[in-house]
């Protein structure tokens, strides 16, 4: 009975294969296209501006700290680089275009700050300017000016305090001011440097490919309305009556769905490999071994799809839920926008959603990392979904009145 049911179930899903495969191609083409365009539009590197810095030896300690600070602000992190030069060197490089601007610190600048004899900084621009560079320079000027003002305010405030309270200086006032200025500049302790990589240390290609593949897998579930949506409860109960429990029916459905999924993607892979030889621009090389390694992820996808359709009991409800849940979970897991920009609790949640678990495994397969731990997660989640499905069915059977009779 079990074998016969399984054979017929496979026969049933195979009858629907042509229609499902066409939709798979469509979904794969749309998402694959979006992924390819995203990868090719990702900037190779952001070219910013280079600023030469001229300063005296006595001020260089402060200047180094200041440069470090300015280079690591969010506004300028990727767009501004500094290099120390002499004045003549700086002039030459500016004229030849090697550097875009020259920042000149006057003689004894730091001392002049805490003596109150302010000397202005000089920011000299090169001849070739573009609109964006001008904006960057403006930003650079603002940042430097802000730091300078804060440093000055701190120093002057301290001096005023000592004057007002007639404190006896334990240290030389210059030294005290120097200390305060150092504090302002050396904000390393106040700034927690985080290495934020939008692509979680994966290359851009691997990141987008993994996210795209997970989306294709989950959106494949939209196809399954015709396979799983129309379910005759009366047939299920009659089969249960003659010894094929609903749990066994569900497990056999799961296996037949898994086989259908593999068949779909096997044929899709053949098409991609064939087209790859003809139109190389649109495809990046597909590794068949990687594809085989990814197959266990389909177990989780199938269990998720099965539980959704069983929960809703009809095709339309299941399809809508799969669509919206995939989009929302994908967003939280960082498929559309780097998750590293989300609050920590959202990032934490994203890792535990099915999309996060699938992404971890697929990206590990694609990037050649260790797949053992992600694979365990995949299997655990699959088991959990199937267990929830079977338990849910049991609860439904109890609620519908199929409880054990205590015969009199």
């Amino acid at each position: 009975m079990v074998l016969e049911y399984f054979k017929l179930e496979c026969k049933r899903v195979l009858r629907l294969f042509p229609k499902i495969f066409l939709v798979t191609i469509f979904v794969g083409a749309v998402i694959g296209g979006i992924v390819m365009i995203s990868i090719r539009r990702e900037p190779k590197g952001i070219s910013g501006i280079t600023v030469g810095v001229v300063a005296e030896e006595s001020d260089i300690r402060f200047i180094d700290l200041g440069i470090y600070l300015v280079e690591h602000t969010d506004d300028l992190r990727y767009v501004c680089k500094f290099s120390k030069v002499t004045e003549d060197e700086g002039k030459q490089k500016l004229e030849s275009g090697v550097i875009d601007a020259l920042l000149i610190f006057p003689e004894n600048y730091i001392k002049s700050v805490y003596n109150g004899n302010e000397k202005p900084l000089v920011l000299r621009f090169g001849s070739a300017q573009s609109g964006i560079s001008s904006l960057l320079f403006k930003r650079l000027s603002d940042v430097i000016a802000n730091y300078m003002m804060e440093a000055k305010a701190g120093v002057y405030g301290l001096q005023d305090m000592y004057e007002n309270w007639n404190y006896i200086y334990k240290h030389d006032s210059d030294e005290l001011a120097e200390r305060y200025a150092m504090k302002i500049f050396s904000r390393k302790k106040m700034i927690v440097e985080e290495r934020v990589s939008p692509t979680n240390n994966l290359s851009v290609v691997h990141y987008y490919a993994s996210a795209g593949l997970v989306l294709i897998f989950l959106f494949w579930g939209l196809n399954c309305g015709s396979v799983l949506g129309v379910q005759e409860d009366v047939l299920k109960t009659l089969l249960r009556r003659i010894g094929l429990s609903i749990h066994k029916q569900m497990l056999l459905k799961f296996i037949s769905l898994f086989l259908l999924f593999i068949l779909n993607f096997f044929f899709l892979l053949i098409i991609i490999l064939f087209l790859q030889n003809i139109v190389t621009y649109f495809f990046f090389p597909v590794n068949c071994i990687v594809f085989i390694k990814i197959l266990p992820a389909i177990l989780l996808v199938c269990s998720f799809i099965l539980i959704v359709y069983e929960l809703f009991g009809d095709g339309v409800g299941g399809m809508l839920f799969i669509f919206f849940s995939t989009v929302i979970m994908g967003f939280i897991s960082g498929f559309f926008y780097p998750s590293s920009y989300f609050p920590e609790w959202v990032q934490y949640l994203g890792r535990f959603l099915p999309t996060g678990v699938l992404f971890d495994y697929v990206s590990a397969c694609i990037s050649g990392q260790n797949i053992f731990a992600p694979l365990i997660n995949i299997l655990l989640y699959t088991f959990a979904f199937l267990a929830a499905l079977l338990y849910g069915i049991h609860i439904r059977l109890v609620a519908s009145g199929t409880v054990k009779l205590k015969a009199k």
Partner: protein
Amino acid sequence: MELQVQHIKKCYRKKIVLEDICFDGCSGECIGILGANGCGKSTLLSVLAGVLSADSGSFTVNGKELLDNKLCKKSLIGYVPQGIPLIEELTAKDNLKLWYCDSPLNMKEELEKGMLAMLGINDFLNVRVAKMSGGMKKRLSIGCAISYNPQILIMDEPSAALDLICKERIHTYIRDFKSRGGIVILATHEEQEINLCDRHYILKNGVLNQLSYDGNVHMLVGKLI
């Protein structure tokens, strides 16, 4: 063969659907269960068929309790529900294979000269269920229900919404089943099927009462209200 149903009770949450249902039957009889829509006829048949569990009561055949006995039920009782218990994407033949794979009967023989031939299933053996008419589906459902060569046939409105030819085919089958010593328990609203029954019961407010029926259908209407 003797059948006895005693004190069957069934509740859905706090609502009593069946209360103290009692009746009996013997070989060659057709028992008609009548009642208004939603009175619990399908529930009663589902309980007897083993699809639903009763809260209390007993259902014995020749003294053997069946309500908790799935194996016995499978071989003794054939159940034709109101819905269509078929796989839409497959053919009649494939659907029959599912039911006859463990059956003591030989599907091929039945198709050639047995009950399946009598139901005329050969005419549409290789047609997909999705393409079948209502009559074809119902005949195929009956064909699946009798796969274990049952002695009791429980049918829930078997000829509802079918054409006259299909109805006549099903009624002929029921007469034949009775004549071979089987018991038919039939829930129906159809006049012809009511006339086919040897005994009639009305289910009303969860209680089953026997009815003496003289062939006057209009008289039944007053009893149902």
